[in-house]
């Protein structure tokens, strides 16, 4: 990375201690806090232990939100940020289980056609609530995103935030994650037989699995110049990050993928593996994870394997699920700040089948190291590595490749297009004989096949990424788990449902089929499709990928439909819309036509539950400024389909475009396809550019003729998701 990014604040809520001081004390003492599960009846389970945050911090609603707010407050205070600085700050959060404390109960009422025993607010039912809570509570208006690529989610969020600072979108970002222990996730890991029955023992021959945990860890990231100008205490520098996807098995970790993420982070920092002073491993204590990761670390370190300490904090903290990478990052920063390596708690004996890592056994060890690599891996083969550096003189700027991103293809599966296959299809996961794809993953695979052709035994391409958006993930999988658990208890939970319940599962299926071994990211919320497109473009322009399959998928079940209706939303519709975005030079060399490029974009944090006209106006203005064009240059504006934001959109558009601008409304064509709306708006734009006319039923106002050469503004906004605006320039066809 070329613009230096530093960590200036930390905040944490955890079972081993709340607040940085208490957390660090327990971490250095190697003192876990494993107890019997009390938040649900664990009697039917083979394992009945977990690590949980003290009851007083769980709050009245979703505990993940209470954890996030407490950790964010500490991080902001720790960074010494003043109230006047906060509105410019952005926020990137990660979660996997937020919303799953209340949702299974509401779903059960729906399934039984009974009145819910309690009333639930949207903040208890949507994962976006974690992002919304932090943004609205602290009045943050900068770039925002919610990520959920399984247990690599938090590291991905931190990397996403760092890139926004690097590119000048923000000076300060809050980045981290929150997850609360839920019975559904516990039952899922139980079905996968990944839970230890006594302790988490990373890399030990005696390791039997992970101990589930919960909490929140949040970092304040800041441009170094901004931190120095305001006299902030700099705790560490974030020097690089790397993403990868195993592009192989959905749940069994692969060492090649972990190695690719670590290597990518080192390349990002222009650092040789030999310069590493510490590796903070994902180290879940599961036999398969630790074996794959140990081999990857051994390959990376080579001759330096005996010299570089390797630690894994989950022996002490437990596995905080989607928040794991943020806990690892926070611990790494503390270890650099205080020159102390946390011990590897739970370790009892050498596993002779593993490479001889220099594990940090016993008590905390003084260690004046400089560079720490932090690993995180998740289901779907998603990996993310972060690299932190002890404060040292500013680094010389590196020359990064300059690439332009262009959209070269687009495909949609929607009811309108007649491209949705009949229900009930169950294609097989490529390379496996035993794992059927669910419908939504099958649809994503079908979309990919339309863009990329049939999948065949692929070579892994580390510069090919899959970046998707979704509102509610693989909803049928979730509902199957909830129903099984409620009806027949934990033994009825299908391990396939849990394995493929992560929001990155459909993208991982594509990555496996096509050998897309680069980033495997998924954004969550109504604006997630637009965020995914924007991030894809940035992965290319920042030299992190050459080709990206992006877009969004939405699976709309009757339950989800009713949930949206209860919020006053119009009919939602199932849809998959995918785009191929690639490096312009690569596209040219293979003779592909560049259909469009993104001139500008912006993402504004969800300061209010439904974005208002002020938010939308700010979002559109910022996107136009980024594109360096005036409102009069815009040829048309596409509306977000959410009914709750229509008035705000009309008002903001009337203010920004006082004359008239062509308004394109996708609702008559597609209904509300939620996160897939932005990719669909892109598709409609590309199709209209090709034929010279907008589809007649989509023209709400203005000229149905497509304005040649003029950019189109795509608006997206929705519940607790803020606003994301894209300015798209269709290219002239030759």
């Amino acid at each position, binding site marked *: 990375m070329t613009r230096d990014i530093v960590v200036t604040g930390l905040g944490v809520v955890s079972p081993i201690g709340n607040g940085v001081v208490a957390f660090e004390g327990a971490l250095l003492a190697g003192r876990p806090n494993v107890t019997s599960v009390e938040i649900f009846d664990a009697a039917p389970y*083979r394992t009945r232990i977990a690590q949980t945050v003290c009851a007083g911090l769980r709050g009245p609603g979703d505990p993940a939100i209470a954890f996030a707010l407490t950790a964010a407050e500490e991080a902001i205070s720790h960074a010494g940020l003043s109230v006047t600085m906060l509105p410019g700050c952005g926020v990137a959060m990660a979660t996997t289980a937020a919303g799953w404390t209340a949702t299974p109960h509401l779903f059960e009422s729906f399934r039984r056609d009974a009145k819910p025993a309690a009333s639930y607010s949207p903040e208890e039912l949507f994962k976006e609530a974690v992002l919304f809570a932090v943004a609205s509570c602290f009045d943050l208006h900068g770039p925002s995103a919610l990520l959920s690529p399984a247990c690599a989610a938090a590291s991905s969020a931190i990397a996403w935030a760092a890139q926004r600072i690097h590119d000048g979108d923000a000076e300060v970002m809050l980045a981290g994650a929150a997850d609360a222990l839920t019975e559904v996730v516990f039952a899922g890991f139980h*079905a*996968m*037989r990944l839970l230890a*029955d006594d302790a988490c023992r990373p890399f030990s021959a005696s390791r*039997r699995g992970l101990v589930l945990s919960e909490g929140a860890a949040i970092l304040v990231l800041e441009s170094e110049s901004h931190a120095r100008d305001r006299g902030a205490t700099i705790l560490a520098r974030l020097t690089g990050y790397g993403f990868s996807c195993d592009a192989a*098995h*959905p*749940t*069994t970790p692969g060492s090649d993928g972990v190695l690719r993420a670590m290597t990518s982070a080192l390349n990002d920092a222009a650092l040789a593996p030999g310069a590493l002073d510490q590796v903070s491993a994902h180290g879940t204590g599961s036999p*398969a994870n630790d074996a794959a990761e140990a081999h990857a670390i051994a390959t990376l370190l080579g001759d330096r394997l005996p010299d570089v300490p390797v630690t894994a904090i989950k022996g002490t903290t437990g596995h905080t699920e989607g928040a794991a990478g943020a806990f690892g990052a926070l611990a790494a920063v503390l270890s650099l700040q205080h020159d102390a390596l946390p011990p590897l708690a739970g370790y009892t004996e050498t596993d002779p089948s593993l490479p001889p890592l220099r594990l940090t056994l016993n008590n905390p060890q003084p260690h004046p190291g400089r560079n720490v690599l932090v690993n995180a891996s998740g289901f779907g083969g998603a990996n993310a590595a972060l690299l932190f550096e002890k404060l040292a003189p500013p680094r010389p700027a590196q020359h990064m490749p300059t690439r332009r991103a262009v959209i070269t293809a687009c495909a949609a599966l929607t009811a309108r297009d007649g491209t949705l296959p009949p229900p009930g299809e169950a294609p*097989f996961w490529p390379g*496996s*004989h*035993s*794992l059927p794809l669910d419908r939504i993953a099958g649809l994503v695979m079908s979309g990919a096949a339309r863009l990329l052709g049939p999948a065949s035994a692929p070579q892994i391409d580390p510069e090919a990424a899959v970046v998707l958006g979704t509102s509610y993930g693989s909803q049928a999988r979730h509902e199957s788990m909830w129903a099984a658990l409620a009806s027949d208890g934990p*033994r*009825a*939970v*299908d*391990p*396939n449902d849990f*394995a493929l319940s992560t929001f990155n599962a459909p993208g991982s299926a594509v990555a496996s089929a096509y050998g897309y071994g680069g980033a495997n990211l998924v954004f969550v919320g109504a604006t997630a499709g637009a965020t995914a497109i924007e991030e894809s473009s940035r992965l290319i322009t920042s030299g992190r990928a050459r080709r990206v399959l992006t877009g969004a998928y939405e699976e709309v079940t009757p339950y989800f439909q009713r949930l949206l209706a209860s919020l006053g939303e119009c009919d939602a519709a199932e849809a998959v819309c995918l785009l191929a975005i690639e490096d312009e030079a690569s596209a040219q060399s293979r003779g592909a036509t560049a259909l469009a490029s993104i001139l500008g974009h912006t993402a504004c944090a969800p300061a209010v539950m439904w974005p208002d006209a002020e938010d939308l106006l700010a979002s559109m203005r910022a996107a136009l400024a980024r594109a360096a064009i005036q409102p009069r240059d815009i040829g048309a504006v596409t509306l977000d389909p959410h009914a709750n934001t229509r008035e705000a959109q009309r008002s903001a558009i009337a203010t920004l475009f006082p004359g008239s601008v062509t308004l394109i409304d996708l609702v008559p064509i597609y209904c509300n396809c939620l996160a897939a709306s932005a990719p669909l708006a892109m598709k409609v734009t590309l199709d209209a550019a090709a034929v010279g006319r907008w589809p007649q039923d989509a023209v709400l106002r203005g000229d149905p003729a497509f304005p040649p050469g003029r950019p189109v503004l795509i608006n997206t906004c929705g519940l607790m998701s803020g606003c994301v605006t894209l300015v798209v320039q269709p290219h002239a066809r030759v």
Partner: protein
Amino acid sequence: MRTVSQLEQALTTILVRQLRLPEETILSHDTLLEDVGLDSLGMLSFIAVIERDFGVGISDRDYESLSTFGDAVALVERLTQ
């Protein structure tokens, strides 16, 4: 109580359905489950169906000891006695 051959047939039926194997598939006791096409996730599903269909609980230790079709038959026989 089911005989060994009935158990063999029942477990074969589970695998045929799960893996979409030919109906006439015959599995010998020394057939490795991995060779039939069960990866780690497939094994978990196979065992989950056995637990449900036979009403038994399979410990992690028993689960980890399974490698052949015969192991699975023997385990179910022991647990259902």
